[in-house]
């Protein structure tokens, strides 16, 4: 993974930055291979000092007592849909980032499938305007092609300059080889990743869920796993040719993971993310047409989920990203095949990671922090984030890894409540989210 140089997008909602100390917590920072009792001093929006517990030289005006808590570099969700501009009945940049803060995320990368599509610098700048009222850092991801139509390339350089950190046509896969090659070449020059929503739509027309026994039982058209793996295989070939950074969004199948492993084995710059719902749920969970279990890519088979759990543990999977996709109640409250794809995920991600990856599958917290912070920063080239090294941005998440709680979708800070995890018992919850030295959420 390469780290792009200059980075953009820090939003200062409030210019009043005080000195803040976070003391007595168990600090986990994989970027510095730190795991132990350390205190932090945040000053002027940066990490000013990190010292063994009780040994801070500087003093803060305010203190967070993190006794019994985990302190880590701020969580980063590199795949969210904030729906602004254009669909503010589902979510706004303000409401989505409030949900992010409540879920422990200090930064989010937002997808370009807005209305209008984020395919030019004006839209990117609009998203980054302080008037949007973001509660955490927002890093827009721009469209790779105009209108995400897969025909004409957007102006990567001007989008990058306006603050975009990557390009994608998320939701509308880039199928055409020539266009994908051009995207790789253009992004390669700027050192930013091309993110692919890997779905060969020629194989998924009219499909609403993964193919298999459950789709047959429900009489729904099945969505083959090859629709994902075939495209990832093609992309890995093109990435090898162009030496560009290829990132697979919401990878969901064993086959696609195999292709990513092969790319990594061949030292290609290939990375991928997995959503909490794909490691938490399988296609059988759709039940009798619960549209809160309808997403793209669909929930997959047990075997796919097991392959993802292996990849999350052994490092083949780089990041966890939520694919937070808010939809209103009415939009989801209809025929399964007509309901929109997607679920919200910002406030359940950390709890699911700790409950399922940590408690159930014994994946160490250090690795979970890597998946939620260290690696997302690296993949998106967010210099000075995903780390608590001295001088880094003062983005810090404090969470209680032992806290047992029940998630109620109705209490979500998101404008939408479309979650399959409503009523789930979770372990692990954010208690403080600090963005640029400011406390943006406190449980």
């Amino acid at each position, binding site marked *: 993974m390469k780290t792009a140089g200059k980075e953009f997008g820090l939003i200062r909602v409030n210019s009043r930055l005080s000195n803040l100390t976070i003391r007595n917590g168990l600090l986990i920072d994989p970027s510095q291979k730190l795991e132990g009792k350390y205190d932090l001093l945040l000053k002027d929006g940066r990490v000013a000092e990190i010292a063994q517990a009780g040994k801070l030289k500087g003093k803060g005006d305010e203190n967070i007592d993190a006794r019994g808590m985990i302190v880590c570099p701020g969580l980063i969700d590199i795949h969210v849909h904030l729906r602004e501009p254009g669909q503010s009945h589902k979510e706004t940049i303000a409401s989505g980032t409030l949900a992010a803060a409540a879920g422990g995320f200090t930064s989010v990368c937002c997808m370009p499938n807005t209305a209008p599509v984020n395919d030019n610098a004006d839209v990117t700048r609009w998203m980054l305007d302080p008037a949007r009222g973001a509660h955490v850092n927002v890093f827009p991801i721009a469209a790779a092609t105009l209108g995400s139509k897969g025909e004409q390339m957007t102006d990567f350089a001007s989008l990058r300059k306006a603050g975009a950190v990557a390009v994608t046509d998320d939701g509308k896969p880039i199928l055409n080889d020539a266009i994908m090659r051009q995207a790789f070449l253009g992004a390669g020059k700027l050192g930013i990743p091309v993110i692919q929503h890997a779905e060969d739509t020629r194989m998924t027309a009219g499909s609403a869920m993964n193919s298999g*026994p459950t789709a*047959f*039982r429900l009489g729904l058209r099945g969505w083959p796993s090859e629709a994902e793996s075939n495209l990832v295989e093609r992309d890995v070939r093109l990435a090898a040719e162009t030496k560009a950074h290829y990132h697979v969004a919401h990878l969901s199948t064993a086959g696609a993971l195999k292709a990513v492993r092969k790319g990594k084995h061949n030292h290609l710059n290939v990375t991928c993310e997995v959503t909490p719902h794909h490691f938490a749920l399988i296609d059988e969970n759709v039940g009798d*047409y619960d549209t809160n279990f309808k997403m793209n890519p669909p929930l997959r088979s047990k075997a796919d989920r097991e392959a993802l759990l292996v990849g999350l543990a052994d490092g083949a999977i780089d990041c966890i990203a939520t694919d937070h996709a808010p939809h209103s109640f*009415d939009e989801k*409250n*209809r*025929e*399964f*095949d007509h309901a929109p794809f997607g679920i919200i995920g910002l406030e359940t991600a950390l709890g699911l990671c700790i409950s399922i990856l940590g408690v159930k599958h014994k994946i160490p917290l250090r690795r979970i922090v890597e998946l939620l912070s260290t690696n997302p920063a690296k993949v998106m080239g967010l210099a000075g984030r995903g780390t608590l090294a001295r001088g880094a941005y003062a983005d810090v998440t404090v969470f209680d890894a032992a806290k047992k709680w029940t998630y109620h979708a109705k209490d979500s800070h998101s404008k939408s409540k479309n979650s399959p995890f409503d009523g789930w018992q979770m372990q692990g919850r954010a208690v403080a989210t600090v963005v640029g030295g400011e406390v943006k959420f406190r449980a």
Partner: protein
Amino acid sequence: MPKPCSLLGLEHLSADDVTRFLKLARKMHTPHPKPLLRGKRIALLFYEPSTRTRVSFEFAAKLLGTHTSVISADSSSITKGESIVDTGKTLQALGADCIVVRHPSSGAPNVLARNLRIPIINAGDGMHEHPSQGLLDAYTMLRHKKSLKGLRVAMVGDIQHSRVVRSNVHLLSKFGAQVILCGPPELLPDTAAALAPDVKISRHMEEALRKADVIMMLRVQKERLAGLKLDAHKYVAQYQLTPERLKLAKNDAIVMHPGPMVRGMEIQSEIADGPQSVIEEQVQNGVYVRMAILTACMGVA
């Protein structure tokens, strides 16, 4: 049945529930049924064209003394883009005591049931279920066979797109019948065997029909093939029910078809009209079974 209830499918019913419907259907099987639902209002909400099922429900409802109203896709607010939930709520507000719904989307009746207070009866949803057909098929089988237990039932043709198959398989499996599904891989995926216990798959019609007690032929649903091309000549050669093939089944085997039937495609006319065919009887029994369903779902019997 004490309380009103919806009938969305047969999958989640117990064998006892099924038996109760069938017993009630036998009571309805009389020249002068009692108007048990006098004064009730029944809405027949048909998003898909249908003659057989719609008229069958309509007659059943009228024989029970109800006021019925048919709302079909080509008329009304449906074409104006109103959601199924809003249409359902409107019918409920108009005083409908029950909605019978036919819809091209699998699970559409479940959406209505989740959002309304009145019973919803599934009259066929997409490729999912067709519970009234499943019940009338069982009713018809039991008019000719002592019991469903151990019965060898071969279903041949377009299994993938058939809601009739799914309802039949769920029901038959609850009673210990042996179900053999037969068809080409494009119309019968291997995953179909996981639908219920004791379901087998065969690609050869001869194998499927051997010693069968019941043969159920299915139409190729061209409208649902979604681009899939099927060689009709090859299909007829491999999967048409011919007199020669029928001989492989038990001597007293019955031949069924849920309709609509394409003579010369999946079945030859001389069989459809022959002595072993119960196809017309299925249609007749449909009215009694649907009277039973309406009565039970409205909590009257």
